[in-house]
């Protein structure tokens, strides 16, 4: 299958420094806030100040009277049918009632829900006008947690009759029988707190309507430009070819940026409404209220094992607090939490359900490792609890349960509704686990387990994870051999900070058998290729990269066909070498001289199956019992990605992913009060990891088992090590505090929370 890569590894596998860096390091990137159009106006969004209420009316007159204000748009401007955000993934009829309107009209359901959009000469004037809007809202009691939602006396969606939106079921084998026959079972309840992707560049758009040509251009799209173009075309009653979505530099995504939000519609709508370019840049407080939240999950899960530590069953119920609406990908985390809770372990009998519960909080969506971070927290904790109960070394317990190479491909639990079957494609979990233990120097560090040294208790832990990648259905590439002999690669994948220009040029260079600097990569915008799917689910390298390999083959065939007559041979006899082609008799011609004009090919890579990268992560922590402070002394990870394109960027993804995970495990928490007001509305309240927090992180990435599913052999690897971090840190804290018998069952393990655990344990 690797015919396109004959010369092999000239570029692929090399730690090539990124081309992107040359502009970013000099302040020459173009992010959406840097885009300006002639005559543009500025928009701000008026958002609901209350969590739940009936929206009676919006009085915008005073705002409209302010000099410099051009328009205040409310849902009334949309006519009878207020457009809604569609379900991009899992578009089940059951979820239709929970879709979010682009502007609230009858009800508001969370603080920050868009009610009106103000457009003015400057952003400052528009912000001044915000204070002049008067929304008449009859407040209703807010629902912020599961208990409140389950009471059912207050409903977010009256016509639905319940605050539970849907149930997701993961089933494998016969859990009931397994639990009935098990030597050992243990049942616990767990909580993962609401937190978020929080990329550093706030969202934003610039939209421009060309009335003469009836064409719309939108700058600032990310991740899934093609899907969003389809949604925008539907909601604005345009055809797709009337819309150009332009991707500029993107300051981080992590699953959240680029999904279709109300603003994705509102800004283009305002631009057409006023026939002027309109710009909107989110501020940070707005971001914390408006962009997808993630992770909030409660679980009541039970593990069953034999007395020698073979896990035979996992069953239970989880509740995902999904916030006020189901947005584009709002079902991914709840379903993943069920399907992937077994992770890298061979657990034959599974019965796990997640209920998606609506509450008066910001809607949730995907954040790096969606549902997996949560599910892995539960599973890794349960394995350590079971190992302790059974008197088995937690390392040995994991070894006994990891899926072995000869069990591959290994099917995971089957999901319903929206039935989905998936299997671990390949891998050697045991080899990687042992490598991680060795690199971490486990046998030495484990001697510190539970020891008090200089006032802090030490603990170590190790856990394993899988990472699904390469979501289908397809990705497109187009490659043009230009007149000057260079190649331009156009790609449907999107950049979200992962270095796609560099990685794709490496793949293209090898596939075309030309040097790196002869290849230019353009991506993300809808005008480049016929269709495209974008960047999510660790898919860009595998899907986009494989599309490049296929397209390069097609282009080379075309070139051979074109030069064969001149060389007096058959196309298969032509040898291509950079800009030249030669025949069997030794004749050499310049490709461009023969062809005389740019020549191009376009192809798609289709794939329905997921790749599964996998690995292990070990942690060493020290806990101060007086303050509850958890210091992470070291994290070491090992991961198999099948085929590595660029070790420099791949390791960067790993370390970044680990530190994000540590944020979720120890610091980050979107806290609401009982009224449904977000209390952590600034970066001073919502704590992110900083440079001093986690100095000692290292990652190893290996190419052990190439994926059989694509011509590169690569496995998606962008989400990575974040997945098991919550569980691993909690296990290390439990190991450190073994003398206190502290067993953390909730995240984050912030100083007050850990301190309370110690206090409670000491009292009992």
């Amino acid at each position, binding site marked *: 299958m690797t015919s396109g890569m004959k010369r092999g590894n000239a570029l692929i596998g090399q730690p090539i420094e990124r081309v992107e860096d040359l502009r970013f*390091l000099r302040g*020459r990137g173009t*992010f959406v806030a840097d885009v300006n159009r002639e005559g543009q106006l500025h928009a701000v969004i008026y958002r609901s100040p209350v969590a739940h209420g009936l929206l009676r009316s919006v009085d915008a007159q005073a705002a409209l009277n302010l000099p410099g204000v051009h328009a205040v748009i409310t849902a009334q401007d949309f006519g009878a049918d207020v457009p809604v955000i569609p379900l991009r993934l899992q578009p089940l009829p059951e979820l239709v009632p929970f879709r979010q309107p682009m502007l609230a009209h009858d009800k508001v359901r969370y603080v920050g829900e868009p009610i009106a959009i103000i457009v003015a000469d400057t952003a400052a004037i528009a912000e001044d006008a915000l204070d002049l809007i008067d929304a008449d809202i009859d407040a209703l009691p807010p629902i912020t947690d599961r208990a409140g939602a389950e009471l059912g006396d207050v409903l977010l969606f009256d016509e639905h009759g319940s605050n539970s939106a849907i149930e997701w079921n993961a089933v494998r084998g016969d859990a009931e029988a397994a639990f009935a026959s098990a030597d050992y079972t243990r049942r616990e309840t767990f909580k993962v707190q609401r937190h978020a992707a929080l990329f*550093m560049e706030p969202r934003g758009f610039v939209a421009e309507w060309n009335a003469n040509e009836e064409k719309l251009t939108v700058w600032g799209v990310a991740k899934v430009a093609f899907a969003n173009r389809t949604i925008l075309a539907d909601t604005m009653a345009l055809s797709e070819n009337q819309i150009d979505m332009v991707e500029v*530099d993107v*300051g981080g995504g992590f699953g959240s940026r680029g999904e279709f939000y109300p603003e994705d519609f509102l800004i283009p709508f305002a631009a057409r409404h006023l026939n002027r370019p309109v710009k909107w840049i989110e501020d940070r407080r707005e971001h914390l209220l408006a962009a997808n939240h993630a992770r909030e999950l409660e679980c009541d899960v039970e593990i069953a094992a034999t007395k020698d530590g073979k896990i035979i069953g996992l069953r239970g119920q989880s509740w995902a607090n999904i916030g006020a609406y189901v947005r584009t990908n709002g079902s991914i985390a709840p379903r993943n939490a069920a399907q992937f809770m077994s992770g890298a372990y061979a657990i034959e009998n599974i019965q796990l359900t997640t209920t998606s519960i609506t509450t008066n909080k910001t809607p949730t969506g995907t954040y790096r490792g969606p549902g997996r971070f949560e599910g892995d927290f539960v599973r890794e904790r349960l394995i350590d609890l079971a190992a302790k109960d059974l008197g088995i070394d937690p390392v040995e317990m994991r070894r006994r349960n990891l899926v072995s190479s000869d069990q591959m491909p290994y099917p995971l639990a089957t999901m319903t509704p929206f039935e989905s079957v998936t299997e671990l494609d390949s891998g050697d979990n045991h080899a990687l686990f042992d490598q991680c233990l060795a690199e971490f120097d486990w046998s030495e560090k484990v001697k510190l387990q539970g020891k008090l040294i200089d006032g802090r208790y030490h603990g170590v832990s190790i856990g394993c994870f899988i990472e699904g990648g390469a979501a289908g259905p397809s990705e497109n590439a187009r490659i043009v051999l230009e007149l000057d002999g260079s190649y331009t690669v156009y790609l449907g994948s999107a950049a979200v*900070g992962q270095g796609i220009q560099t990685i794709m040029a490496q793949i293209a260079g090898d596939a075309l058998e030309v040097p790196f600097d002869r290849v230019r990569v353009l991506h993300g915008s809808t005008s480049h290729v016929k269709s495209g799917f974008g960047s999510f689910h660790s898919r860009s390298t595998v899907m986009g990269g494989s599309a490049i390999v296929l397209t390069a083959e097609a282009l080379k065939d075309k070139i051979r066909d074109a030069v064969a007559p001149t060389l007096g041979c058959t196309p298969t006899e032509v040898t291509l070498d950079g800009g030249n082609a030669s025949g069997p008799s030794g004749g050499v011609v310049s490709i461009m001289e023969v062809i005389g004009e740019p020549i191009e090919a376009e192809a798609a890579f289709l794939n329905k199956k997921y790749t599964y990268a996998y690995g292990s992560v070990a942690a060493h922590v020290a806990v101060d019992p007086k303050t509850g402070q958890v210091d992470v002394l070291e994290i070491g990870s090992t991961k198999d990605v099948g085929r590595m394109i660029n070790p420099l960027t791949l390791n*960067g993804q790993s*370390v970044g992913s680990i530190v994000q995970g540590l944020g979720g495990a120890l610091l980050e928490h979107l806290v609401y009060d009982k009224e449904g007001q977000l209390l952590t509305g600034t970066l001073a309240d919502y704590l992110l990891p900083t440079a001093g927090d986690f100095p000692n992180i290292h990652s190893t990435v290996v190419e052990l088992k190439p994926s059989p599913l694509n011509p590169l052999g690569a496995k998606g690897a962008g989400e990575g090590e974040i997945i098991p971090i919550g569980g691993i840190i909690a296990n290390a804290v439990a190991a450190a505090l073994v003398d206190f018998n502290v067993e953390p069952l909730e995240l984050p393990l912030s100083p007050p929370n850990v301190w309370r655990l110690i206090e409670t344990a000491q009292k009992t």
Partner: protein
Amino acid sequence: MLVKFNVNGDTVEVDVEPRVSLADCLRDVLHLTGTHLGCEHGVCGACTVIIDGEAVRSCLTLAVQADGATIVTVEGLSNDNALTPLQAAFRKHHALQCGFCTPGMITTAHALLTEEPDADAERVRDVLSGNICRCTGYVPIVEAVLEARAAYANPDKADAS
């Protein structure tokens, strides 16, 4: 209000409303868009510029406060021909992913190393902890800044402009 300052070696005079931040003035009036805004409330450090030798958050500084000052932005720490040693170290260590925090990291690190070319790892971490990066996990940023120290010990090499 008329405000006059020196930015990246050029003396400029701008007419701004008193409420305009230095960050907005640099970006919108002077088109120096390398200075980024990640929070506009003084926490993320993306907007850091160097005013009279000190790293300062331009989102918390009013343009009028900069009257008479000498300001250096990331653009002023760059040249067309080659990356500076600091920038090259960032590239080599893959100390940037999305690149959004990068201008603030470069200005902060430059101000630090200009004053303290022998700053140790702990000092570098401490100073950089005022700048948030969501992508890299900081490890490569610290490595890059430590590597760039050599160039600042010998000031000729570090001079970008």
